[in-house]
């Protein structure tokens, strides 16, 4: 009697369970049933909900019409760490649920083993792209992804304030520091209490690696780990670069900058409370938004260099790759090539202001008409510094150690020299024999 009562009581749950199982079965057959008959269905994860997704969707739909195949779009988490975790989990399990994934420029080393070599499908198209990006996507001679969207650090400045104080956009970090200090002090004296000279991404996360790499590289201090695998970070130039950055905090940069990501920096700059900002190209459209207090007062240039150094912007951006476990590799590769093709990149540049990865597209009149500042980006991308992806699967560990070391120096917990020396030792340990 007890059991029969239990059954009646839980009947609600049971029927729900049955229902779910039934749904599961039906959807899974729905997804996998059409294996070899008729047009293939591809699952593509190409961005998170928002313009990102919309821009991808339009391209995929065009491809569907053209190729007669079907593609299902799956949104990925906005946080790149979460997205990477998700992909790792799926790929490690050998799951074929996703055919095409959008990967960050620093992931090839991590995910490379699970991605399809696209060389056989490109028919030599890789030469159209920025060489640095193609190099980044090539692991052991295999082209495992194709650049889809480019990104690099830029310097934003307040045209109006620079003009007011007779400054020109800075070419070196020293000029930036001096100008920032001068304008900040003068404006504060004039009553603009909240104004700061320079904001950047100082929180201990991947963004700090990008920022700090720019400082170090522009000082000629190398790229943490050189392409040949040598750990180079413990050098006087790198120390000088980080020491300089540490001197900003609390002086021309708010103490809170040590917790800033991109959006916090933009928030300060866009509210009119910063003279200079280091950020990615996306901030341009925002700063020029119609309700922006700094609309039409903003200028963008390449990041400053050190005296005698070279300008360096950290390369960012996204690539499209095909999973090794895909059941339809050819179809998937075809979609990747379509989406990364010049025509599609042009459309995205015009409609969504996405930075293309093909230099030629930057010369397109329509593109430039829509995005005048794109012209200045080509040089930046050409000179962009890749992050030390030579570390391969250990990149995340290298980066984490690096940003923690830099953060400690910025927060003045340790002198830059000590911090970087300790970092180099850690990295040696991490490297073991080879990367």
């Amino acid at each position, binding site marked *: *009697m*007890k059991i029969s*009562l*239990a059954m009646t*009581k*839980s009947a609600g*749950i049971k029927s729900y*369970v049955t229902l*779910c*199982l039934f*749904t*599961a079965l039906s*959807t*899974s057959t729905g997804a996998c049933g059409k294996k070899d008959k008729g047009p293939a269905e591809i*699952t593509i994860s190409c*961005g*998170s*909900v*928002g*313009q*990102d*997704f*919309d821009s991808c969707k339009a391209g995929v739909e065009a491809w569907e019409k053209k190729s007669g195949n079907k593609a*299902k779009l*799956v*949104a*990925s*988490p*906005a*946080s*790149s760490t*979460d997205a990477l*975790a*998700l992909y790792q*989990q*799926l790929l*490690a*399990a050998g799951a074929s*649920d*996703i055919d095409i994934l959008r990967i960050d420029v620093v992931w090839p080393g991590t995910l490379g083993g699970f991605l399809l070599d696209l060389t056989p499908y490109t028919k030599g198209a890789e030469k159209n792209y920025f060489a640095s990006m193609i190099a980044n996507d090539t692991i052991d001679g295999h082209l495992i992804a194709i650049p889809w969207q480019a*990104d690099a650090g830029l310097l934003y400045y307040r045209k109006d304030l620079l003009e007011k104080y007779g400054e020109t956009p800075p070419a070196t970090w020293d000029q930036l520091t001096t100008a920032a200090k001068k304008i900040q002090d003068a404006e504060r004296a004039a009553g603009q209490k909240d104004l700061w000279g320079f904001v950047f991404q100082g929180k201990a996360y991947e963004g700090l690696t990008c920022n700090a790499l720019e400082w170090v590289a522009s000082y000629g201090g190398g790229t943490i780990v050189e392409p040949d695998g040598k750990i180079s970070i413990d050098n006087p130039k790198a120390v000088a670069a980080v020491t300089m950055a540490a001197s900003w905090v609390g002086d021309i940069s708010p103490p809170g900058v040590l917790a800033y990501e*991109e*959006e916090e920096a933009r*928030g*300060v700059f*866009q*509210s009119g409370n910063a003279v200079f900002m280091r950020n*990615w*190209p*996306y*901030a341009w*459209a*925002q700063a020029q*938004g119609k*309700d*922006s207090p700094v609309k039409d007062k903003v200028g963008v240039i390449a990041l400053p260099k050190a005296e005698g150094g070279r300008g360096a912007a950290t390369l960012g951006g*996204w690539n499209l790759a095909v999973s090794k476990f895909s059941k339809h590799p050819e179809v998937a590769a075809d979609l990747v090539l379509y989406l990364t093709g010049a025509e599609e990149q042009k459309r995205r540049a015009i409609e*969504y*202001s*996405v930075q293309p990865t093909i230099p030629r597209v930057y010369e397109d009149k329509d593109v430039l008409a829509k995005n005048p500042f794109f012209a200045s980006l080509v040089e930046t991308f050409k000179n962009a510094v890749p992050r030390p992806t030579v570390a391969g699967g250990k990149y995340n560990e290298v980066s984490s150690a690096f940003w923690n070391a830099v953060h400690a120096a910025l927060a003045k917990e340790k002198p830059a020299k000590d911090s970087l020396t300790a970092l180099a030792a850690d990295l040696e340990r991490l490297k073991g024999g080879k990367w």
Partner: protein
Amino acid sequence: MKARNLATGALFYLLVAVIVFSAVFPFYYAILSSMKSGTALFRADYFPLSWNLGNYRSVFRDQPFATNLWNSLQVSFAVVALSLFLAITAAFALARIQFRGRTLLLLTILGVSMFPQVAVLSGMFQMIRGLGLYNNLLGLVLSYMIFTLPFTVWVLTTFMRDLPKELEEAAILEGASSWVIVTRVFMPLMWPALVTTGLLAFIAAWNEYLFALTFTLTNDERTVPVAIALMSGASPQELPWGNIMAASVIVTLPLIALVLAFQRRIVSGLTAGAVKG
């Protein structure tokens, strides 16, 4: 005396006000932010400047947010029903029956809560796929048991222990089986505990992110926290703050409704009149 009463009363309401203010203000601020866009988001305001519902519209327009809400509701209700059912039967055994190994069992159940969620993630992922529950809400319901069950079992056991022994004995003498005792004698007396643990389990399931992200794939099977985490602006770096706040407000409303609806069940003195005079 009267003046003192008045003063205590005023102090009491002041305390209530402080509590309500600290609890609600961030949420109020979220509502404010949800009606802002662009640069306004970076400004500290205390009152709404305009009633702009654009963010709410775009939340529903850009993705199957209604489906996500519905998924979350199904999952959370199923989690609550299943964990309460499993927990109340288990709690009866653990709280009211003497048997060997009971203490060990209680500690083992507690032990399940001692592993970090992320540590069981990959094992759980394998299991979910093995059971064929990947990208299926049922997989979520099952996996959520790992954090709702220990908690509900423990809390209900604690509460069940305190119910008068005589009630159970009276029922036994009248021929009630253990099942009848649980369902018809104890359960009605445990409403405060059931509603409370149920609510806490509901909210835990409602807000769960890591499993939901990992065990579902398509937007149609995803739950609300994942849906929020999927939102992005024009570029990966941009945080669509207005949309996220709008979504959070929407997500929080059903919970508030739920709390208000179950209010009456969290009333005091359910056991009054059971024993003593």
